């Protein structure tokens, strides 16, 4: 250590320290360290931490949004599948119902046809019977008239008349056979 007083431009060994400078250097450095330790360091670290947190928060938010979108997509897909299934069921039901309706209609139509046929047949039968009866009467009357004319014998008696006609017709049918 050199003494405090030295002349300007005095030749000194530059490697020998100077007491005042050592004290001043230590004090200056210590002061700066305290300022940085108490003011600068915590604030910069705070900014760094906040930034890291902000970035991580952003990433987490994005992940959450992605998960939500995924869930929504799955839900939509599921709903779509459900809707498709439902449509399929409805279509099948409709087809079955259609088949049933057609079947029913056909049955009804057949029934109706059968009924109409039966009624027609009954009418025809009745008309035939009627025709047969009237024909028989007419033919009887004609034949009687013819016969009375031929025989000259008036067959006024109705009962006899009928008997004769019946016999005549039976003969006729027999001869037909």
């Amino acid at each position, binding site marked *: 250590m050199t003494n405090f007083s030295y002349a300007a431009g005095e030749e000194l060994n530059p490697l020998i320290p100077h007491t005042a400078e050592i004290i001043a250097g230590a004090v200056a*450095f210590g002061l700066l360290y305290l300022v940085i330790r108490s003011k600068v*360091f915590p604030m910069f670290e705070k900014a760094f931490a906040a930034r890291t947190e902000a970035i991580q928060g952003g990433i987490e938010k994005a992940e959450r949004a992605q998960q939500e979108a995924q869930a929504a997509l799955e839900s939509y897909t599921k709903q779509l599948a459900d809707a498709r299934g439902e449509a399929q069921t409805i279509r099948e039901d409709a087809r079955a119902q259609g088949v049933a309706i057609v079947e029913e209609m056909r049955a009804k139509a057949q029934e109706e046809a059968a009924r109409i046929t039966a009624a027609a047949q009954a009418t025809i039968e009745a008309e035939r019977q009627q025709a047969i009866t009237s024909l028989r009467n007419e033919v009887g009357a004609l034949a009687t008239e013819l016969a009375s004319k031929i025989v000259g014998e008036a067959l006024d008696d109705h009962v006899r008349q009928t008997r004769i006609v019946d016999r005549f017709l039976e003969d006729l049918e027999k001869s037909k056979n």
Partner: protein
Amino acid sequence: MRIQLAATGEGFKAPSAKDFNLPPFIDGVAFATKPILLAFLSVVLISVFFIAASRKAAIVPSRLQFAGESVYSFVREGLAKDIIGHEFLRFVPYLFTLFTFILVNNWFGIIPLLQFPTMSRVSFPYVLAAITFFVFHYVGIRKQGPVKYIKEIMFMPGVPKAVYILLTPIELATFFIVRPLTLSLRLFANMFAGHLLLLVFFLGGEYLLMGAMGLKIVSPFAFLVGIALTFFEFMIQILQAYIFTLLTALYIAGALADEH
């Protein structure tokens, strides 16, 4: 004074070590010297700048905060985190103070009007190296206990016993003498030599300008070289601040590691 000498034709006196002995500007007050004033000026400048830059601690930094953070994260990430590892955070304030203090005081060597590198006064590098010396030994002793710490320095594991005769003195000298000495002298010598070099070219150029006609013509070349060297010095000043901080971080990392 020297210029006057030159002008009166007493011949050029080359700058020397005595140009670094600046007397107190108040007679009898040993602390009133230029280097001491510069050291405190650097404390004020660094404090003001970084307090202003870090005050808001915003997520989206302003230009000022970004500038401050760039320097801060250079030390924090590039030096502390990469070298010391997971325990780095508690050393960041010290390394950051060290880096900015040395850097600004080095820059004083080329900042107009100030133009004196504080670290060319050997006392300042001695103080800084002494602090680093105590810090890394303290860290090592706290981490491993005094006995194990000294033992690991003296008897490096994994070495044949006979080698210790040679290795132990070397290791002891390295840890307790060479490290602090080289740390301080490297910084001091670089700043001292750099300043001397600039003095030679600028004062020499000035002397030539005062001289005869033939010398006047040569004078601009001296100034040109001086300006080029100023840029060169600028880089050396950054480099030396970086190296001092880097080595401090390495010594701390070594003291923290279980095996050297």
